[in-house]
């Protein structure tokens, strides 16, 4: 059988399982008695084993098998302690490596001996006596008491099916049926519904009230095929658990209807919708010239439906930000342990949706920010106590929608940043002139300058800022912005603002010389007309004064080597901003607003600074989409040191 077509689905699902295992393990660490979590983990490992086996990934299969054994032992009542939790964390990490290796090479080469031996030695340690895993409520206990008064005995019957049973549920049913002929079945473990749905391994238990003797009950199994082993024991009522809340809630999980679709297909759909959006624009333009009301009505309808289709298609690409956040609890835990910090992580807004392509790009910058928050933002427990704070620091990650944007905030209640020290540092580094007068906000912004801080001098300055320039440029590539707010002694908050999607954006179309450009609307503040004589030159740069602020001007055509602009007395200037920085883009003509579908550029062109992509206009002409952040980076802003 050719399995390659299943590989993607396998990969996606297997990764999901590993993530869930990690999440559940974190949960288990907090609630070591939560049977539901243990059951889910066991099932997860079991499913993973089956999937890996089907794909022929033997190493992966063997490894998951061993994990399954460990989880099963825990499920059967082995106490959950720090030792096994840590072992499992290590095992899950290795599992992830094995999975990726298997996917890439068809086999896993990483040495698993040590981890496996640890797991096995844990398994071989004396296990406490196995407790029956029935959950008896008061009613059940009452029933058992009454039955014993009538001479019936409560039997705990454990049945192990042969490993090659083809229809476990039906086999279990024949057992239940046979047993119910000699008594009353109070409960099964796992519950009957799970037995019928084949949600059990090869073993299950039945709690039977019967006058029959143990031997007679055992004899019943002689008539039932496919039974490996049966034990019949008297039920120890004291040892039986009371039903936990989680068991009462039962396992009603993931019953929603989902279809897995290859992301390539979604992208294709979105691309086609994009083309349709372009044609619609074309039809609208033609329609405007028509006199025919019926035709115009139809075109309006087409316009409406296309817009809805566009949103529907875009929503397909939306995924909850949880996909990025998922790995943070584990990461923060590890970082905190390594750094001797105590951290409480609060995550809110995990269900906030944003474009899948954004989700993929967001992980790294967020990891960077979290790392900074734990390593440098939060103080040690001793320092915190000395400062009159709780020794446990809090880091919060919050996501929410704000208009057509997604806002992500990462904040800590740590030591905050000292703006004065930033100023000194920036002067030492020659990033600002000694006489420059900057607002606190502008000073904070310096943290994002390339080369502002390096690891060796980080802690004495502010406790923040390693690679903040990298974070900003990553976010700006996504058409987003990063800002920082801090209060000395109280903590720091980094706010990231992103567009909901990257696929279709609203843009202002402009002409510079013979080229048409699209400028993403979210980076535009306003459009103004400026008489030529108002343009001044400061330090060799052209600027204008706009409401008492100096605004540097950028000649778009010259900047992009498209020749000189037309010689006119009134200049069309687009005031654009990225974060705190502003710039005036001088163009020849404004053509109007339009939704454009971003086509990524060929790799030869992709690195052109200031260009984010291209789009096809209604008339088939290609227009470049400007990346204002990139343009700004090329062009030096006035307060940066001219000396360099």
């Amino acid at each position, binding site marked *: 059988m050719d399995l390659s077509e299943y590989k993607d689905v396998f990969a996606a699902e297997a990764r999901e399982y590993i993530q869930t295992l990690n999440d559940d393990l974190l949960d288990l660490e907090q609630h070591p008695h939560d049977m539901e979590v243990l059951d889910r983990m066991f099932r997860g490992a079991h499913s993973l084993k089956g999937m890996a086996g089907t794909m022929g990934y033997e190493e992966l299969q063997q490894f998951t098998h061993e994990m399954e054994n460990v989880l099963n032992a825990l499920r059967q009542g082995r106490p959950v302690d720090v030792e096994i939790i840590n072992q499992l964390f290590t095992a899950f990490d290795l599992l992830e490596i094995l999975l990726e290796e298997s996917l890439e090479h068809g086999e896993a080469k990483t040495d698993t001996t040590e981890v496996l031996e640890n797991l096995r030695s844990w398994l071989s340690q004396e296990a406490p006596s196995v407790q029956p895993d029935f959950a008896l409520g008061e009613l059940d206990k009452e029933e058992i008491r009454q039955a014993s008064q009538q001479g019936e005995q409560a039997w705990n019957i454990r049945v192990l099916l042969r490993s090659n049973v*083809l*229809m476990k*549920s*039906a086999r279990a*049913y*024949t057992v239940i*049926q046979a047993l119910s002929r000699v008594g009353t079945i109070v409960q099964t473990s796992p519950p009957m519904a799970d037995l*019928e749905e*084949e949600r059990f391994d090869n073993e299950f238990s039945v709690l039977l009230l019967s006058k029959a003797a143990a031997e007679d009950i055992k004899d019943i199994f*002689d*008539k*039932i*095929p*496919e039974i490996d082993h049966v034990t019949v024991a008297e039920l120890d009522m004291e040892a039986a658990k009371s039903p936990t809340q989680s068991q009462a809630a039962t396992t009603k999980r993931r019953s929603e209807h989902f279809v897995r679709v290859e992301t390539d297909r979604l992208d294709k759909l979105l691309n086609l919708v994009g083309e349709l959006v372009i044609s619609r624009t074309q039809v609208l333009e033609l329609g405007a010239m028509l006199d025919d009301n019926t035709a115009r009505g139809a075109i309006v309808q087409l316009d409406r439906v296309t817009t809805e289709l566009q949103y529907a298609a875009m929503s397909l690409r939306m995924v909850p930000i949880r996909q990025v956040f998922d790995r943070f609890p584990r990461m923060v835990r590890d970082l905190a342990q390594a750094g001797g910090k105590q951290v409480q992580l609060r995550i809110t807004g995990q269900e906030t949706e944003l474009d899948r392509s954004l989700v993929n790009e967001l992980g790294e910058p967020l990891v960077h920010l979290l790392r900074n928050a734990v390593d440098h933002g939060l103080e040690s427990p001793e320092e915190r106590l000395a400062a009159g704070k709780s020794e446990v620091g809090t880091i919060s990650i919050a996501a929410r929608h704000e208009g057509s944007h997604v806002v992500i905030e990462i904040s800590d209640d740590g030591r905050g940043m000292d703006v004065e020290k930033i100023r000194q540092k920036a002067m030492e580094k020659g990033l600002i002139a000694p006489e420059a007068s900057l607002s606190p906000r502008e000073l904070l912004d310096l943290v994002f300058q390339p080369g502002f801080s390096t690891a060796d001098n980080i802690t004495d300055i502010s406790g923040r800022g390693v690679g903040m320039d990298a974070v900003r440029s990553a976010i700006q590539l996504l058409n987003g912005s990063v800002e920082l707010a801090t209060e000395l002694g109280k903590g720091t908050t980094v706010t990231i603002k992103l567009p909901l999607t990257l696929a279709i954006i609203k843009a202002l179309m402009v002409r510079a010389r013979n080229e048409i450009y699209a400028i993403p609307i979210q980076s535009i503040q306003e459009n103004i007309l400026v008489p030529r004589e108002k343009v001044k030159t400061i330090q060799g740069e052209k600027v204008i004064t706009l409401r008492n602020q100096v605004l540097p001007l950028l000649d778009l055509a010259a900047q992009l080597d498209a020749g000189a602009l037309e010689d006119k007395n009134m200049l069309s200037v687009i005031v654009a901003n990225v974060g705190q920085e502003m710039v005036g883009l001088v163009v020849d003509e404004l053509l109007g607003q339009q939704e454009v579908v971003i086509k990524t550029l060929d790799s030869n062109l992709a690195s052109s600074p200031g260009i984010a992509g291209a789009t096809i206009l209604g008339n088939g002409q290609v227009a470049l989409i400007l990346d204002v952040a990139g343009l700004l980076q090329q062009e030096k802003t006035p307060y940066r040191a001219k000396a360099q």
Partner: protein
Amino acid sequence: MHEYERGGVHSHDPMGNGAIAMAHTILVVDDTAFMRMMIKNVVQKHGYQVIGEAGDGEEAIAKYKELRPDLVTMDITMPKLDGISAIKAIMEFDPNAKIIVCSAMGQKAMVIEALKSGAKDFLVKPFEADRVIEALQKAVG
């Protein structure tokens, strides 16, 4: 009386080697001749005697009433009348009837339904000879 008579009527030698004096009698119900042949070959090799075959549920009921076999193997999906309805009808006629239901993989709901209707055991296709014989032995000895 009945038991005695049955033993008497069918106590011949299916293998032709005189090894078995009292072979259990079997009615094989399946809509495909191929499956019937397969089951027949397997059970006859182990000394059971196939005394009848049926290709649908209606025929199965008629043959059961006529032949009174010790055991029936019953397919589920069949024309005219499905296996489950046939099991119900046969059980109504003879509450002691021993029926083993045969199903394809993934039909567990149907199998459980059949067990609820009175089938003693089940077999899952593709059949393994050992499993078939085990089921037969456990059902009729």
